[in-house]
């Protein structure tokens, strides 16, 4: 074994280092901060995120490159996914402080933990190494387990943390077992290994590896039938954490999933029906279950399951016809989903006042009168989640329809259409609750709308409406991501290494 020091391209690692470092600085400030004042921490965190955003934007359009012996990969898709993660974190931080303060859990540790969690997500999407993906997954999840249990006086918060933790650890064991099979068939733990393994005549190895990895990531991405934790955790966790994880954790899991699916292109005939079924099941389960919810956060949790199903349709269309259908749809939908989900959760967060928080649907009653700004933004986000034009949610759905039909997956497109109709019911219930004000007995007291929350709302609204006009540039940027040779790399059946010997690869 020859020792070599790999050459390091620090520029590629910089975004991650900045985020991790910002977390450390924030932690240090937390130790020496004046009592009960997190403003400096928030400021530093936002500055770090903004700097990271700029660094990532600079990486757009650069050629594909790796560093740290392939542990970090910089390509268009990964950079865009990281941008979404950083952006979502930024939006969450804007309104977190006032919310945590109202809830009386303004731990300064929230910011470093969330930053590290986001860094974990960024690691997952910016690598082709399965070990690195696993480590990223764990960084993401372990920080999230703690954040979900952050509201320590609340039983449901602690419950959600425990559920999330147990099921998350369970899922990562499956993910890891899948990696073990990939490794067993090819001796590699990068995604190339899936290819190699497929060529090694150990076909079943890779099939099972794939299935196990899918189970593991399915948990994280909240795909049915692995979604059971989602509503509980979304409901129980503090609202800002819910907003954060509904986007960051999903983006990270989807990023990893897209890469893995892309590399198992050859197994398509096996998994295409399976994942199509999962997509339909996911959106149907999410929407049907959401119909009967009495809790706004829980309903939005189910809605995020449904949206994972919609996204999966876009992913499937890309993976089925990678040469003609790019990932721009998935990117666009993720941005839209991110802003509308964070916007909705952020606006719901004003129900927290003086240490109490009511998230039942009727707790929103009277919002329209007491906090018209928040009610308006919430309404816009919900309209976008239903997919009514002219909002970003509609064009996202439209793009998915477009791709699904182009990839000859009409059944998925029709299932998506039916599900959109179903979803209108429960979004309506939430929107309606915010507009009720007849019954004075029902009216909740709302926290004042802080400046940060206002900024979040304005940014989300601007994105929801702005993405409609800016659809072409976003799609253009996203389009390059599918031209990335690393995602698109396919091995011709002839070029694939031929198996040596029998099934056992024995002597």
């Amino acid at each position, binding site marked *: *074994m020859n020792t070599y020091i790999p050459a390091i391209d620090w520029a590629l690692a910089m975004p991650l280092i900045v985020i991790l470092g910002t977390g450390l600085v924030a932690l240090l400030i937390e130790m020496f901060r004046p009592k*009960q004042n997190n403003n400096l921490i928030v400021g530093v965190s936002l500055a770090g995120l903004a700097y990271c955003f700029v660094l990532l934007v600079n990486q757009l359009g650069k050629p594909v490159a790796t560093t740290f012996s392939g542990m970090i990969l910089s390509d268009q898709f990964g950079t865009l996914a990281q941008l979404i993660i950083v952006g979502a974190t930024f939006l969450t931080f804007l309104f977190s402080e006032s919310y945590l303060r109202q809830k009386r859990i*303004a731990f300064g540790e929230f910011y470093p933990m969330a930053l590290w969690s986001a860094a974990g997500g960024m690691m997952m999407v910016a690598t082709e190494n399965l070990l690195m993906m696993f480590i990223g997954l764990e960084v993401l999840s372990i920080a999230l387990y703690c954040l979900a249990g*952050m509201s320590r006086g609340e039983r449901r918060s602690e419950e959600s943390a425990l559920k999330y933790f147990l099921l998350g650890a369970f899922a990562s064991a499956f993910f890891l077992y899948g990696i073990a099979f990939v490794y067993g068939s090819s001796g590699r733990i990068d995604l190339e290994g899936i290819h190699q393994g497929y060529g090694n005549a150990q076909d*079943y190895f890779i099939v099972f590896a794939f299935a196990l990895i899918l189970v593991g990531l399915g948990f994280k991405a909240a795909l049915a039938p692995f979604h059971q934790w989602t509503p509980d955790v979304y409901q129980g966790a503090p609202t800002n954490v819910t907003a954060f994880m509904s986007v960051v954790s999903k983006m990270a899991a989807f990023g990893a999933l897209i890469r893995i699916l892309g590399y198992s292109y050859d197994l398509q005939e096996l998994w295409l029906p399976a994942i199509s079924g999962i997509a339909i099941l996911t959106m149907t389960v999410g929407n049907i279950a959401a119909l009967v919810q009495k809790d706004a956060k829980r309903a939005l949790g189910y809605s995020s399951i449904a949206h994972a199903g919609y996204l999966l349709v876009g992913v499937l269309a890309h993976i089925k016809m990678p040469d003609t259908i790019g990932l721009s749809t998935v990117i666009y939908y993720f941005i839209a989903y991110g802003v509308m989900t964070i916007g909705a959760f952020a606006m719901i967060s004003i129900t927290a006042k003086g240490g109490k928080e009511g998230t039942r649907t009727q707790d929103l009653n009277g919002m329209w009168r007491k906090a018209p700004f928040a009610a308006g933004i919430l309404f816009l986000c919900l309209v976008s989640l239903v997919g009514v034009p002219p909002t970003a949610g509609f064009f996202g759905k439209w793009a998915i329809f477009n791709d699904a039909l182009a990839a000859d997956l009409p059944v998925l497109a029709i299932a998506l259409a039916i599900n959109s109709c179903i979803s209108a019911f429960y979004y309506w219930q939430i929107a309606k609750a915010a507009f009720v004000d007849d019954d004075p007995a029902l009216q909740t007291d709302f926290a004042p709308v802080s400046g940060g929350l206002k900024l979040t709302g304005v940014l989300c609204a601007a994105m929801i409406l702005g993405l409609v006009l800016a659809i072409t540039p976003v799609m253009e940027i996203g389009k390059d991501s599918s031209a990335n040779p690393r995602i698109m790399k396919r091995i011709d059946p002839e070029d694939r290494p031929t198996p040596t010997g029998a099934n*056992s690869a*024995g002597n």
Partner: protein
Amino acid sequence: MTLNQIAFIVLSCLALFGAVGVVFFNTPVRSAMALVVNFFTLGLVYFMLGSELIGITQIMVYAGAIMVLFLFVIMILKSTNDTDKPQLGERRFIFSLLGAGVVFTMIYRYVIMPTMERTNVQFTRTYGTPQEIGKTLFTQYAWPFEIVSMLLLVGIVGSIMLAKRRF
């Protein structure tokens, strides 16, 4: 049957005893002890596989440190005499066994059976030695190594956050 094979069978019987114990013993303490047995035996199995450093780490970190943590928590929680032995007639139990059985059979049939013949291998002389592992860890795997150090920090901060007084 060679000595090695006998040794392996004995070790795996012990490991399986531990594994079954974790799942089926009715008090957490007994489950924890069974887990220690399992971890310790696994450490020995790692030795058989030639990974001496990992075997030692397994015994020290897992069977030692981690299990102490577990026992510590079990003691604090005073749940030593809580009985939650799985009910054999319970529907959940039957279904989970059925599901696990199906998956087990499939993986066994399609993945493990073909490897039943695979024995001879080629090794470098340094296989499993601390030198080699250290070298790789600090060159090729430097980045994950750094990240795992961050991960441990996350774990520490997280535990503090969950345990400290308000604000």
